[in-house]
């Protein structure tokens, strides 16, 4: 049953060293505020899962929180590479990280299988690609009716999934809309879950068949206004493309990266503090 907590308390209680963590979001509603709090609380040895690791994963990796990444596309959307991810893979800085690489269709099947309490997901996938040569978690099975060969991936079962959504009500029922990615599946697949929201309201006023996560499948809900910045929250604010472009320069060098984390994340006490400190350097932050 969801409890309404401050983000600091929620991360403190539900994200532990060595956990397998999914901070999901598909360019929309990316849980930046929660990611920063994980850095502030110095979590270590995390296995991080995400279809599209982007800037927040670059920050977690550079800050030394991550020992393994499971993903299918890693980049700075519309800009280029994730320099901290590359530095970790190519130069083992700040620590070596293990890589388990998939295609999107396989990650999607793994989340759906996890949500469905199945040990594996089946797909017509991993054909014509070298990925299976480098990933022993891709196997092939035969259809018991047609004999066709199909790919199988183990279910994702995160210890904790962290997402950002638009709204929750005071009981902790969560509602999201727009590009909803794999967030519902990631929460349903996880043992624990934290949802940050733009606002907590009296009534969700949900249209029929809305994308809802009832309070009883969520561990904690935290109100964090702007908590998806620099990504966007449909109905609240647009994507801050300037920040994504700036990140390329910040992350290129270890020194500028560490200085940035120090000044804006570990040097601030919460996301409001971060937003305040970043306004000086990014327009419309």
């Amino acid at each position, binding site marked *: 049953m969801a409890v309404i907590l401050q983000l600091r308390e929620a991360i403190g209680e539900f994200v532990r060293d060595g956990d397998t963590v999914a901070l999901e979001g*598909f*360019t*929309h509603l990316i849980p930046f505020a929660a990611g920063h709090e994980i850095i502030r609380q110095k979590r270590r040895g995390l296995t991080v899962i995400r*279809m*599209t690791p982007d800037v927040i994963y670059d920050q977690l990796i550079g800050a030394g929180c991550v020992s393994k990444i499971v*993903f*299918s*596309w*890693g*980049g700075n*959307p*519309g800009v280029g*590479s994730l320099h901290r*991810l*590359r530095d970790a*893979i*190519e130069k083992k800085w700040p620590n070596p990280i293990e890589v388990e*690489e*998939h*295609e*999107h*269709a396989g990650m*999607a*099947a793994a*989340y*759906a299988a996890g949500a469905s309490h199945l040990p594996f997901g089946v*797909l*017509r*996938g*991993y*054909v*014509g*690609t*070298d*990925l299976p040569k*480098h990933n022993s978690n891709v196997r092939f099975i035969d259809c018991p009716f047609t004999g*066709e060969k199909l790919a199988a991936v183990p279910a994702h079962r995160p210890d904790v999934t962290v997402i950002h959504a638009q709204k929750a009500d005071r009981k902790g029922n969560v509602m999201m809309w*727009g*590009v*909803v*990615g*794999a967030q*519902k*599946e990631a929460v349903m697949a996880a043992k624990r879950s934290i949802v940050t929201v733009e606002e907590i309201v009296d009534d969700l006023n949900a249209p029929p068949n809305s994308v809802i996560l009832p309070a009883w499948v969520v561990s904690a809900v935290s109100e964090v206004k702007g908590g998806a910045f620099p990504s*966007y929250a*449909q109905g609240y604010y*647009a*994507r*801050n*493309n*300037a920040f*994504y*472009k700036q990140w390329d320069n910040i992350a290129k060098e270890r020194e500028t990266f560490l200085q940035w984390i120090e000044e804006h994340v570990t040097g601030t006490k919460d996301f409001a503090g971060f937003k305040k400190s970043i306004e000086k350097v990014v*327009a*419309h932050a």
Partner: protein
Amino acid sequence: MPDGALEYTADEMMTISAARMLRNGASCFVGIGLPSAAANLARLTHAPDAVLIYESGCIGTKPNVLPLSIGDGELSETADTVVSIIEIFTYWLQGGRIDIGFLGAAQIDRFANINSTVIGDYDSPKTRLPGAGGAPAIAANCGEVLVTLRQNKRAFVEKLDFQTSGGHMEGGDSRERMRFPGKGPTAVITDLGIMTPDPVTKELTLTSVHQGVTVDSVVAATGWKLKVADQVSMTPRPTELELTTLRDLQARTAKAHAGQN
């Protein structure tokens, strides 16, 4: 160039000739970047009824400006509907509902297999690229695939460092034998010309060069001995409509994204 002909860049020619390949009414799974520009140009010119689908779950989207990311609000707010990532990859892409997949690439080989994963060795890469994303599923499941990228010897290679997505595999009937649902790449459109697979060997064959481009220069920009058709046609120049529509789209895009900066 003849009097009164429009001036345009090689990149504009590439995007315009890629756009021309998208037939009206087709459902098209669109990759970000060059494919996205080409697909939307097609929608704004000869293919108003093309259904554009992005892997973020946006179906039938009609963006007024080009998205920077595959899940921009501009895509979801102008879509007929938005579904989950799980659904877009199962019921729609794997479900066999998509006519055309539109992909970019970092490297491509003579059978239109593509690499978007890594340059150099996988375990100690020279350059780590973003990776597969939806590309392997797009290349496998769409009815046909169009690939668009700039042509040079770093991109058009004898051997891929890593095969991310399957084109015509080792050529001939090797793709068919693997029983992919889709028939694979039908054209590769670059800043220099257009290559299509040979009907039998499936080897990419230069069938058209853009205005002012020589066959030799295309061959020279290719990392293998490029097969050239007996009759190489000349890609028609951009029409005024194509060029102004593309430039207006790019101007709107620059303005919109600047507005968020």
